[in-house]
């Protein structure tokens, strides 16, 4: 057969690819003396619009640290991308590829950039002893570092978010005592992420007497007519919108269809980006959202990035209008947590690349206080973050409320602080139950 030679060539090529794919990582040592930052990406698929500005913020800050500051205390950061397409299976391949370092560079921590992947890596990371860091998107029960020594759900959790939303509504209706009889609908993405606020809102509703109505939207959420008809029929006063991806703009548009006012919808931190509000057009005007990653360019650090990275043509952004958007700033904030952890580690272990166990120590002893934030030029961009072996989330949980004016987000409030004591016992009990199910003995403080 005439074409069989071509076919043999093709097959040989495929086998060659297989060999390349299977080549054990870290064979060479070209990046010895550097700190690996495995950048888990999802540049394709339905969530790529969120990732692309995020990844750019992430990269740009690290490029700035490398090129302008000469590395973290002199240690260069070696960025290696790995495309997960926001799927868990490809994320696991990325984790396996980079968990022990790459090309001579050491791995101190892994940021999976996906709540689902964070959960999926829990057991593996405990066995491999690799810290998994998910600022804003981690598992709430993993706050307890004695049971989850390798999980770092830094900065924020959805239970505190629920509380901040209720606080904000209380301030709007004239105090907590006025919450009685107020109807608050939670419209949630029907997934583990979306269901996470059912329990805390139940607790809050008992405490304050508001009516708690939970309505799920199945993934991906491109049709929400019936959900919003239910909301209208229930004569809801407020909607707490816990969306992701396309669900958010559809919700805002459908709200307008049934005549529900946008300024009584409060979006989740993943429903509060430009790409969530803009596609909804005029319907989104007045729409509110909780924000841990405030948008805007009016911060010293962003001005520095603009001058040294964007204007120098080193930015990962293709579209410079994304500079200072919610997801770009989130990327910057996340990179700051990584770099600050390295600083902490360097003070204890010396100015050299940190291994995973040293990265863990650093993450457990993070202390980004008001003074440090001012030094970073990030005042107003991040709030103080202090972790401990018992508390892997950080002691202060805060968020701002932002509002869409039809073209951009404006910050409405200063940092609203969550009362972390309210749910602490429930979460501890959940963590303890998890430990029992898994047969984990809580670690004692070894510092």
């Amino acid at each position: 057969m005439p074409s069989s030679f071509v076919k043999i060539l093709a097959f040989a090529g495929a086998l060659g690819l297989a060999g390349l794919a299977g080549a054990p990582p870290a064979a060479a040592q070209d990046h010895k003396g550097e700190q690996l930052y495995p950048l888990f990406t999802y540049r394709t698929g339905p969530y790529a619009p969120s990732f692309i500005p995020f990844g750019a913020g992430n990269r740009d800050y690290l490029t700035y640290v490398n090129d302008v500051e000469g590395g973290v205390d002199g240690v260069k950061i070696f960025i290696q991308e790995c495309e997960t397409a926001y799927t868990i299976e490809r994320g696991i391949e990325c984790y396996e590829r980079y968990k022990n370092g790459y090309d001579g560079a050491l791995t101190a921590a892994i940021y999976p950039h996906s709540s689902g992947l964070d959960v999926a890596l829990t057991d593996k990371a405990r066995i491999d002893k690799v810290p998994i860091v998910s600022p804003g998107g981690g598992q709430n029960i993993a706050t307890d570092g004695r049971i989850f020594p390798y999980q770092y759900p830094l900065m924020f959790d959805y239970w505190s978010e629920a509380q901040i939303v209720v606080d904000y509504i209380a301030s709007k209706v004239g105090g907590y005592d006025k919450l009685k009889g107020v109807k608050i609908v939670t419209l949630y993405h029907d997934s583990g992420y979306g269901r996470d606020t059912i329990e805390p809102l139940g607790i809050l509703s008992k405490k304050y007497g508001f009516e708690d109505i939970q309505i799920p939207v199945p993934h991906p959420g491109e049709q929400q007519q019936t959900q919003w008809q239910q909301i209208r029929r229930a004569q809801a006063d407020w909607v707490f919108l816990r969306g992701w991806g396309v669900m958010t703009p559809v919700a805002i548009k459908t709200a307008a269809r049934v005549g529900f006012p946008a300024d009584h919808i409060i979006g989740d931190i993943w429903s509060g980006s430009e790409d969530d509000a803009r596609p909804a057009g005029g319907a989104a005007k007045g729409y509110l959202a909780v924000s841990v990653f405030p948008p805007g360019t009016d911060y010293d650090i962003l001005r520095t990035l603009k001058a040294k990275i964007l204007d120098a043509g080193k930015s990962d952004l293709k579209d410079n209008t994304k500079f200072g958007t919610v997801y770009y700033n989130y990327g910057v904030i996340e990179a700051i947590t990584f770099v600050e952890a390295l600083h902490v580690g360097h003070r204890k272990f010396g100015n050299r690349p940190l291994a995973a166990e040293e990265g863990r120590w650093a993450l457990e002893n993070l202390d980004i206080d008001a003074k440090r934030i001012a030094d970073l030029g990030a005042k107003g961009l991040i709030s103080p973050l202090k972790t401990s072996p018992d508390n892997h989330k950080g002691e202060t949980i805060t968020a701002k409320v932002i509002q869409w004016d039809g073209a951009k987000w404006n910050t409405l409030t200063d940092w609203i602080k969550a009362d972390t004591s309210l749910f602490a016992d429930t979460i501890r009990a959940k963590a303890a139950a998890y430990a029992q199910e898994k047969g984990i003995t809580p670690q004692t403080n070894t510092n």
Partner: protein
Amino acid sequence: MSFFLETLVSGLLAGTMYSLVAIGFVLIYKASGVFNFAQGSMLLFASLTFVTLVERNVPFWAALLATVLVMVAGAVLIERLVLRPLVDRDALTLFMATLGLSFVIEGLAQLLMGTDVHMLDLGIDDVPISIAGLSVSQFDIFAAGTALLLVIVLSIVFNKTRMGISLRAVADDTLAAQSIGIRLPAIWRIVWSVAGIVALVAGLVWGARQGVQYSLSLVTLKALPVLIIGGFSSITGAIVGGLLVGATESLADIYIGPLVQGSVSTWFAYILAVAFLLVRPAGLFGDRAIERV
């Protein structure tokens, strides 16, 4: 009662949005027997092309025309590079090829036009108006009107024009049609072009609702139960199936949803469709294409 009626009406109107997507499938299936999974990606590609042009300040009609040309060019390429080499292969292989095609189209769309979420404003506000005491979105009425118009235009094209008649000949009996000199590749190119244009229309209506973004390619999944009920090769079936699916799905979500503490809209239409086929294997518009055991 008025709540029930409102749910019903908005469900019916939502159903026409499903029909818009389903019609694209029907066209291709009718003429070439291909179950074209890439219809969703074509929808994404078309609407993304259009919105990108409009954002570059190309006038509305010029952008529309340019997008139509792009879709026609795409159809010619698909016929030449994918369909022709696969002619005479079994239906499943063709289906898998369209799956591969959807990877290519989605990749190209995002490569060429980026992954941004675009707003699309067709000038019709998605706000409720009151008709006979019922609150109905005027955008839904617009969408339903678009679907109706599309069906009328397609019916005229298929029944009155020479091309349409050759097309029906191919659908009825491929071999006989070829023997009287109808060229199959030409028919395929035309049909895929028309399906591309239908994808554009559906993409614009859906894109105006949810923003033009990757998730548009997922609306395919909403169209499949419509096809099972209405039949893969009947345009009327696509409309009636769409109405049926839209209405029952809305009612089920409102009245069955609370019983299971959730929304049933991801699967209800499919189970309904299967149950429907078990009772009536010939489908709603029992045509010969349904293979019976």
